[in-house]
């Protein structure tokens, strides 16, 4: 579905994306994570054809984005972080205008989402709140019946209730309709909200992918071990840890990558009275990797 190889996006003052590799299968929800300036938005804009890459290739649906622009664009939709509409248009006029840009338009989806979000068709877009603007942008995106939905920081600045209805709509109306075919690529800072939604994620730092993994695999791979000792915790740890071991009195905390059983057995040998093992959340993994 998404196949990015060696993507380079260059600005006059330097490279924002430096040889990014990214592959996402159809029917998956993939998150792009990274700190501000990591290159997420530049990557998305290059994918959408809004920026010309300085190097590398981008293929969506098996097609070269530059060569098959019309076909690629007819199969994707985008919800930006700050949706923009003509201030003089009403909600109904905005939907009519957006539909005129698309090759497909699903009126049932439009009607369903409008009633779900309780958007007034006659309201001028300049009078909509930030949450309502995001909801309208989502209606515009989902009614186009895309195969790939690109979300760029979609829920930042929204209150928790609007965030929840937004995510429910994305999953319920978009992905559940045809789970084998509908793909989501989301860039977000609110990682915890997408914790149970994303199938995989890529952590970007300085324009490069520093970690790409499936969410389940990551949870199984990264493990936090907390061990309590009767005496002082051991000074040295004879194994590789993701970050330096942390000691608090008799407690020793290790974060390990891919060998939790080995670490657990070493802790038992070292005299640990109790060992707790917990899987890391995606947010924890992001904080380690970014």
């Amino acid at each position: 579905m998404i196949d990015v190889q060696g993507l380079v996006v260059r600005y006059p003052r330097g490279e924002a994306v430096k040889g990014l590799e990214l592959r996402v299968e159809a029917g998956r929800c993939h998150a792009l994570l990274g700190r501000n300036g990591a290159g997420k938005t530049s990557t998305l804009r290059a994918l959408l054809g809004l920026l010309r890459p300085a190097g590398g290739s981008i293929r969506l649906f098996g097609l070269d984005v530059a060569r098959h622009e019309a076909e690629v664009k007819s199969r994707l939709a985008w919800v930006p972080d700050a949706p923009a509409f003509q201030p003089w248009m009403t909600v109904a006029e905005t939907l009519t205008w957006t539909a005129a840009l698309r090759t497909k338009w699903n009126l049932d989806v439009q009607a369903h989402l409008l009633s779900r979000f309780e958007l007034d068709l006659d309201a001028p877009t300049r009078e909509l709140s930030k949450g309502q603007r995001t909801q309208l942008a989502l209606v515009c995106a989902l009614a186009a019946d895309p195969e790939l939905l690109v979300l760029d920081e979609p829920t930042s600045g929204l209150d928790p209730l609007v965030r929840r209805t937004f995510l429910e709509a994305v999953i319920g109306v978009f992905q559940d309709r045809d789970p084998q075919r509908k793909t989501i690529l989301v860039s977000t800072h609110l990682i915890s909200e997408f914790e149970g939604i994303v199938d995989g994620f890529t952590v970007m730092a300085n324009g490069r992918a520093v970690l790409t993994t499936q969410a389940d695999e990551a949870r199984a791979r990264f493990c936090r071990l907390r061990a309590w000792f009767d005496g002082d915790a051991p000074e040295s740890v004879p194994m590789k840890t993701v970050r330096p071991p942390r000691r608090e009195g008799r407690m020793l905390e290790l974060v390990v990558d891919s060998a939790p059983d080995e670490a657990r057995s070493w802790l038992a040998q070292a005299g640990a009275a109790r060992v707790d093992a917990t899987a890391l959340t995606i947010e924890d993994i992001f904080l380690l990797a970014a």
Partner: protein
Amino acid sequence: MTPTLVAEQPVRAVAEFPTVGLWLLALIPANVVMLLDLQHGVVRPFAWLARFVPALLLLALVGWAQLRTGPTAIRLRRELRLSLGPAMMLLLGGGAALALDVLSGSGQALARAAAFMTAIIVPTAVVLLPMSAERERGTLLPLLASPLGARAFAEKFAVAALVIVVSWIQLSAAGDRGSELWWFALAGHALPLLTVPTWFFLLQNDGMTLGYVVVTPVLIAVPIALLGSSVAIGCVVVFGFAMLAGLPAAYRRGAAVGPPLWLQGDVPGLSGLERLAPPLLRAALHAQRPAVMISAAGVAGFVAIAAWGRDSAVAPLPLFIFSGCAAMLSPSLAFAEARRVGTLEAELVAQPRRQVFARRALLSGLTTAVLCVALPGALVAGVVGVTGPMVMAWCVAMLVLWSVGLAASVHQTSAGSALVAGFAVAGIAGVGQLGLCALAAWATASWVGGDPFVSRAFLAAALAGGAAVAFAVGCRRFLAADRFEPRIAVAAVTISLLHAAVLGMSSALVGHWT
């Protein structure tokens, strides 16, 4: 109270050199005048000093702000950076009128008319754009809310005033003192100083203040055309000082973020004609409204002057200025303003770039053809009875402005910045092409013997070639989704200048053989 700096800021002379270096261009016009005088065997050191010293004062301010590290210098450094673009347009636009004295006949007249147009329109931009930039970047409210906000605005205004005074001192050397064009230029320099800051705080809208840049020439041209220079200047001065008196109240209103005037009424929706169009065309037509309004204002001004029966030679000038602004604004609205609002990206995500470009460029081109060429051309030909070559020159001028507007606006993010960039490029490119065409004719004539011959048709062909290159550059930049293409810019400049030089040589040879 003067704020205390936590740490001394290091002097960044090397890093800031490009900006500082560009201010050195302010010295060019005074020295060009001196060189032209020397070429004619005239030595006027005091006249040179009178023009040179104000520019030197401006440069002294730039140097002081660059080298000092106090809070005032830091603020001034920022203001000078914000003012650089429009200031250089004004100073060099006026200077071009002096430098192009070497042109012969119609080329000289056209260059001088362009310089006076610059003198009428650009001073408003010198005052307005640094303030408008604050709003566009979201720094206006923090500035107004800061304890030194009023002082910062006073410094901003002082920088603009200094640039305008220097420009006027240099420009007043060109043109005949006391002529109508000289009065236009004087009013064009004086009125923005007196009125623009008040309008800025009253309107609180960049589109409206941008519109004011265009309305200013009417405020100047109509009274002068209707009432004569002295009475009109009296009216302009009274109006200007009345506006200046309202500045403190307008500033307080702006600082309190009261409801702006433009928001007190409802934002206009679709007109009947727009409703008949399909959705995509409807939105594109609606976006062209400011260009339509500017064009309509020009037509109204022209009809008023013509009906009053004043000097028929002056009557088309406001119409030309308004049509030129509309021609430049139309592609800016189709691309740059749509990018600022965000609707252009929504279209680009849904449709191929080629399709989006074709639709927007075609609609903007048709709007320009109707509003800036067909309608005013018919009016001027019918009322004033101008001849065919003048109508052709009018068409070429509009074509150049539209093409350059398109090339400049495709990657800009507001109509205001696109308009300024477009005027700057059009001014430099137009003067460069006309100058090279005339120089090539002069050089060829010197070589083969005989007089240089540059007819309007050759000059128009040179400009039309430039317009075609500008359109190709705009098209290429948009379709390639790349705003940084130095190779394309170099190629475009080379092609258009070569084209102008070839036309100049050809015209001289035609003159020689006939």
